């Protein structure tokens, strides 16, 4: 069992996830076949996930190789993914309090500089134009209700 490929690794995850779904569904009540309860179909879906995960795992047994998890990230600049994700999560958190204009300015400013750095001047101008431009299009023109936040307008 020491030799696993990545299909097997992921299928183990789904096996657990499927069983967990099926297990929790029982709590919601399976009902009888003639009157299925709220947990009935989720239970079936969890069971299906687990069964299929098992199929994938067994299918891959003869093909088990020394494929490493890190093979999926060879020659990839994966820290950038984390940086972008982090920035987006932060944006979602401060979006309401800081308001659309300010948080958008900060997000674009950061993304333009952190991933493939442009010059400070371009970053600054780009962030201002994007924040104001998207504000005009979405808030003023399309009347989306974006949060005002601390800038208060």
């Amino acid at each position, binding site marked *: 069992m020491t030799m696993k490929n990545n299909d097997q690794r992921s299928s183990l995850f789904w096996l657990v996830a499927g069983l967990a779904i099926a297990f929790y569904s029982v709590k919601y009540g399976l009902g009888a076949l003639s009157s299925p309860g709220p947990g009935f179909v989720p239970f079936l879906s969890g069971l*299906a996930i687990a069964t299929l995960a098992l199929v994938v795992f067994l299918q891959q047994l003869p093909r088990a190789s020394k494929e490493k998890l890190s093979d999926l990230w060879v020659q990839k600049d994966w820290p950038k993914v984390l940086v972008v994700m982090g920035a987006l999560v932060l*944006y979602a958190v401060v*979006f309401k309090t800081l308001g659309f204009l300010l948080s958008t300015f900060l997000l674009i400013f950061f993304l333009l500089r952190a991933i493939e750095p442009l010059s400070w001047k371009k970053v600054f101008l780009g962030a201002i134009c994007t924040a104001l431009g998207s504000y005009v299009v979405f808030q003023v023109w399309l009347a*989306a209700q974006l949060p005002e936040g601390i800038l208060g307008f």
Partner: protein
Amino acid sequence: MDFLANAVMGFQIALQPMNVFFCLVGVLIGTLVGVLPGLGPVAAISLLLPSTFHVSPVSAIIMLAGIYYGAMYGGSTTSILVNIPGEAASVVTCLDGYQMARKGRAGPALGISAFGSFIAGTLSIVGLMFLAPPLAEMALQFGPPEYFSLMLLGLIILTFLAGGSMPKALMMAAFGLFLGLIGMDIMTATPRFTFGIYFLSDGVGLVPVVMGLFGISEVLLNVETRLKQDVFETRIKGLLPNLQDWKDSAWPILRGSVIGFFLGILPGGGAVISSFVSYAVEKKISPHPEKFGTGVIQGVAGPESANNSATGGAFIPLLTLGIPANAVMAMLLGALIIYGMQPGPMLIRQHPDLFWGTVASMYVGNVLLLVLNLPLIGLWVKILKIPYPVLFPLILLFCLIGVYSLNNNAGEIGLMLFFGGVGYLMKKFSYEAAPLVLALVLGPMMENALRQSLIMSDGGAGIFFTRPISLVIVLISLSLLILPLLPWVSKKREVVKDMAEEE
């Protein structure tokens, strides 16, 4: 004749200045998102959906439909000039389209995709016009068991055609089904799997999931690989294909149209798969298959026609059964419900103006695309020259605004980001996202149909096998599940898979 009167009514609606305007806006936005890699029609539709709430439903659907088929036109431009598919459905166009561009024949390649798209688009609208009304009449006889079997078949077809590992695709379908069930149970009002998060009791929204899986994750994958975009630096001259080009392309365009239309009808079929099938067919019947991949015009004309034709076919299950064939149609289904219409067999009868108006607007839109697109290619090329480090923050911002403005709920941004991460990992471990999305939409409908069927039969699963229509559908589903186990079929599927992976 009824049909003629309806068609005339459709054009009267579609040609109202307001509707022509919305059609124009739709096809322009569609072409734009088609041209831009990493931004597709699904994202564009979800972004614009909230802004359509204050126009009439007909105008709104006309615009949203325009985005869809407009994107198919736009996708080819990027494939041919940059060798990056602007749209998933244009992946195969890269193979020969980019080679044609390198040989200095970018003009005819772009030209034949536009003409092929126009011809195929028009043919498939004719098919839609003739097929949809009688199919809707037939669908009136469907009860819950038939609906359940049909939706199951749709999911299985999608996993069968998707290429790659079928158990993995089915697993994603089951997971999507589960996601679709999160939230309030319709029959008993029990909140399920909401973990105390309030907005989840309305269910997991389609828009955050789709924008996460297709928008955010795509950007993440591009950020880590550092996409190089070399727009082909050449004067694009002579967009009009010459006589020989037309001779070479006429049959591929017609075959592509037929293939696209019928694969488009199948739930889960759609534009991507039909373009692959069309390419494979052209290569197979060509007297010089070895020339494919070196810049033959058939390799562009066929797939580009097929993906456009598929858009017409894809409307059929939505408008006749209320079952969306793909993620874009699922968005339109959501839109119809928001506008207070019940998609299903009664739709054409209850809202003839919507059906015939939309169909007629698709003719108008195809003409607009043909007239506008060739002169506008210069503009699209300029847009393509925007470097990715500048473009990707904008794509992310569009996703953020689009998801937020749908319900003004910051929690949905979180949900989108979560699925962005999930989608990124799914791509890494090669799991298909399409079955998940389709199942997410079908989930609540399937659950209802299954529970109603079981209540009807008093708990007997035999109900799916004793009713003739349902039995036929179930048998087809089963054979699709068994077929891949046969050696020669599995070999064929491998080939298609390899073709998909080469890109």
